[in-house]
């Protein structure tokens, strides 16, 4: 490694260290601080004073200890061996750090200064070239592939490289071994990328395809685009993490990056224990094989928390560039914002709203704008996407706070989690009155699922809207003031809420609901509404129509196997219609 100049510690306050010396050091270079060589990043240059945010606990540092410039910015290692792993915010491999000899958990506590490469240098991978000697290649072309679990890991020509292939090597190779030579320059499977720089692509594409999540409230009411961004604000206990984990499990993505940013350690442990056991219904492989975890839990050093989302999104872009659809969950962006605030306050910067630095909004924009559907670099035609789903933990559950508001401006989809719904055990607690999506996928759903998708969806949205208005009246005047059709709307609204929008993440028959089954369930409720309405028009009392015993079966629709949903819905509708014909 090329090393730059030396300096020494002058001041220490929390995660911020000021050094003197370090001639020629550049902003955002990584430096090694103190006798323990703690990693840090240069965040301000001021005469000979160099301000550094340190990624590990600074206790024990003294004035005068050495600081060394590594000459490079904060980078991640890219290559085979990323999937199924867990890293910290600066890509230290937590699985390797826990190991002691043969005991995989022999070192349960994290210590500072341990310097282990993210990717295993000794492991060999079977490299299958996709180029031959004499081929001309440009940046982004596929040099060869490596089978990594269920995924075909594509090794690409680096961004700054083009030329003629002069030699190729096939078969087992380690990450540092040259596998292809372009103009006699050796290329390895291992590459690096600075985390704060977005990786380039040939062009951005319109977000025209939804990211199917298998969650009814999302896919039907507020779908998210592949390459789009969603924000999930919610007070504590509203189910942000459960929803994020459901999305990580079931979203139709090739690769999932889960960034646990300043949250609970046990939640990541849960993912680590649960995901290897779950099977990806689309590939048959374990879910862990498509997942990378970035963990910077709330008790880990705060500056590394700030870096963790950049590390996560850079890994996401790496797989995007190979032509994959990547979903990135960031739980929670509020903790990232707080890390920013803490460092900013140690720098004695002028605070803006609620103590956050004034650049909070532009930093958030830099992150969310890395969500994109792109045409990848390279001469073949590949498309890939990074979809970002950011949880927000607003203080006091109040959405007027800066992180929620800035996220709203940037994300095209907003799933508002509501405390009242959560208390009623309505999960996912997505408030249909406040949430929205800016994407319109009517054409896609009509083409890919069924021609009446948009019609059913519009009916459901309108009914929920009317129900909300009527409930306000009921709150003021009681239910007796409503006319029979209005009371019927309330009845159908309850069916929609309880039997359709509610979905249990813990029930294996219900955790994932395929789009055709979603539609079958929705149609069943709509036909029930029509049948009740007909009965009421014939003079039947609303209470009687709404209490038909076969309606109870609607509450068990979620148990239907997906492949039988249409058939089961038809039977159920027949039963309900027959029964309601006898009423009134």
């Amino acid at each position, binding site marked *: 490694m090329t090393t730059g100049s030396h300096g020494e510690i002058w001041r220490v306050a929390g995660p911020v260290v000021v050094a003197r010396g370090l001639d020629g050091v550049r902003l955002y270079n990584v430096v090694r601080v103190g006798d323990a060589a703690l990693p840090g990043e240069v965040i301000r240059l001021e005469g000979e004073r160099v301000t550094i945010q340190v990624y590990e606990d*600074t*206790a024990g540092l003294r*004035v005068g200890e050495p600081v060394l410039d590594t000459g490079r910015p904060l980078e991640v290692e890219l290559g085979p061996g990323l999937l199924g792993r867990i890293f910290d915010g600066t890509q230290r491999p937590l699985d390797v750090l826990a190991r002691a000899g043969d005991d995989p958990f022999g070192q349960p506590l994290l210590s500072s200064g341990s310097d282990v490469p993210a990717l295993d240098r000794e492991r060999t991978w079977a490299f299958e070239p996709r180029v031959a000697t004499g081929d001309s290649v440009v940046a982004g072309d596929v040099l060869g592939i490596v089978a990594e679990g269920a995924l075909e890991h594509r090794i690409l020509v680096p961004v700054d490289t083009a030329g003629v292939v002069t030699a190729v090597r096939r078969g087992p190779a380690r990450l540092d071994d040259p596998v292809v030579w372009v103009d006699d320059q050796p290329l390895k499977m291992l590459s690096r990328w600075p985390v704060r720089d977005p990786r380039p692509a040939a062009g951005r594409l319109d977000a025209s395809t939804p990211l199917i999540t298998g969650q009814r409230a999302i896919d039907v009411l507020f779908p998210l685009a592949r390459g789009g961004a969603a924000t999930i604000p919610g007070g504590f*206990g509203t189910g942000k993490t459960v929803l994020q984990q459901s999305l990580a499990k079931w979203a139709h993505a090739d690769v999932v990056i889960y960034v646990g940013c300043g949250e609970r350690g046990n939640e990541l*442990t849960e993912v680590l224990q649960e995901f290897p056991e779950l099977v990806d219904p689309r590939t048959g492989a374990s879910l862990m094989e498509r997942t990378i975890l970035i963990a910077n839990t709330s008790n880990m050093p705060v500056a590394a928390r700030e870096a963790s989302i950049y590390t996560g999104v850079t890994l996401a872009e790496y797989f995007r560039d190979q032509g994959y659809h990547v979903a990135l969950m960031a739980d929670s962006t509020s903790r990232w914002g707080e890390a920013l605030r803490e460092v900013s306050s140690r720098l004695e910067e002028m605070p803006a709203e609620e103590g956050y630095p004034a650049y909070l909004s532009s930093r958030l924009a830099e992150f969310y704008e890395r969500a994109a559907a792109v045409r990848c670099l390279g001469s073949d035609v590949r498309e890939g996407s990074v979809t970002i789903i950011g949880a927000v933990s607003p203080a006091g559950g109040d959405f007027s706070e800066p992180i929620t508001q800035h996220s709203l401006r940037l994300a095209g989809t907003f799933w508002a989690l509501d405390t009242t719904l959560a208390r009623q*055990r309505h999960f996912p607690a997505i408030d249909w009155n406040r949430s929205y999506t800016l994407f319109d996928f009517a054409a896609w759903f009509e083409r890919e699922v069924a021609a009446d998708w948009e019609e059913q969806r519009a009916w459901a949205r309108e009914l929920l809207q009317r129900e909300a208005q009527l409930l306000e009246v009921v709150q003021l005047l009681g239910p007796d003031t409503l006319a029979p059709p209005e009371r019927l709307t309330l009845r159908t609204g309850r069916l929609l809420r309880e039997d359709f929008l509610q979905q249990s993440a813990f029930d294996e028959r219900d955790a994932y609901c395929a789009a055709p089954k979603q539609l079958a369930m929705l149609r069943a409720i709509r036909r029930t509404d029509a049948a009740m309405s007909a009965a009421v028009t014939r003079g039947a009392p609303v209470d009687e129509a709404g209490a038909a015993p076969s309606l109870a079966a609607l509450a068990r629709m979620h148990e239907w196997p997906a492949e039988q949903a249409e058939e089961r819905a038809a039977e159920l509708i027949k039963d309900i219609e027959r029964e309601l014909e006898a009423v009134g």
Partner: protein
Amino acid sequence: MTRLYTTEHRTTTYVSGPLLIAEHAEHVAYDELVDVVTPSGERRLGQVLEIEGDRMVVQVLGGTRGLDIDSTAVLVRARAARMPVGPDLVGRIFDGMGRPADGGPELLPEAERDLNGRPVNPVARAHPAEFIETGISAIDGLHTLVRGQKLPVFSGYGLPGLELAAQIAESARVPSSDEGFVVVFAAIGVTDREAAFLRARFAEGAALERSVLFVNRADEPAAERISCPRAALTAAEYLAFERGMHVLVVLVDMTNYCEALREAAAARDEVPGRRGYPGYMYSDLASLFERAGRIRGRPGSLTQIPILSMPDDDVTHPIPDVTGYITEGQIVLSRELDRRGIAPPIDVLPSLSRLMNAGIGDGNTREDHRGVADQISAFLGRGRELRNLISIVGEQALSDDDRRILAFVDQFERRFVGQDTQRRSIIETLDLAWELLAAFPAGELKRITPELVERYRTTAERA
């Protein structure tokens, strides 16, 4: 990097609030502990908050009263904030700094541990899954606690949060094993009355043999409130992960802790966050609460029950708010239930245990547990809506179904929640739930599978 020499600095230039600044300070490490020697020769502990060039900022933990500029000395001995630990911790009483406060001998230390602990690698954590029977129906039945969880009690001034914690600490056990808990109590900024209550419950007779007490009283220096839970957790971690014990840590009252944090932050001229609490309060509290858990391949566990008083009963106040985001659920006490004489006054609806699913069901508690809990929550949710409604339109407007739900909620609060100091096993808790649910026709119990309704409802009816 241990340095054996001690350096003395008689170069104090500034003393105010809890802070002292000394110049010409060399060999001082950030965050280390120093001794501050007062003009009268008394030694007080201090912690280095900042170093810059040859200047150090020290927070004096024993208070700055009586310090001066001329003769106050700072002794630097290259120590991190550490505490001696050993098996004879159990049965002792300590102050907020971890020094014996029961008149007994100094500890025979087996080792010394950093008061701040070190973060557990998430890879090495074992997900908590063992049911703890607290004997309290509202918790065991609806918001189950598991070993290694952190489940706070959101109390209010005048509500029996401390009494509830004491009740849990005394009666908590794991049904399948005889092992009890070692209870580590950190009393942070408590009044003399509260300290006396704790001593009577935990430091006398048989209880002493399974408790460790850390007491920082309200009239002791605020800076010691910041170290008090750290000392307690350091002891607890040692007992849990090095001695293989099951440890239940009760931290009371976290509101006092947060007040001390705010006081210290203000003294350092830090940019205040919401309501004057420092912006890093989340990270700071997380560094305490995240010390709960289990470690793979090690037998012990560390379960935390922090208790806090919500100022003005406001759950959106920064202290309960930040806590709720870190902990794995919360038990909320209700002033209304307390007024109605229901003890413990646990408000079931806003309460939550995030780790409940892992610890219940067949093999842990009973197969019907999940369904029963969901069904009760659904009825209570509906009952809450109905109570709002009748306050507007009166009870006449209700249907028979609605009336049945209201009657159920009433019975539930009085009999299920209001158990007083009686201890119920989980089986007794679930059987009582079925007894109350028997008021509904089987078809109304939509959250429970028909097979389970069949099996348990009939038993309840016969009873």
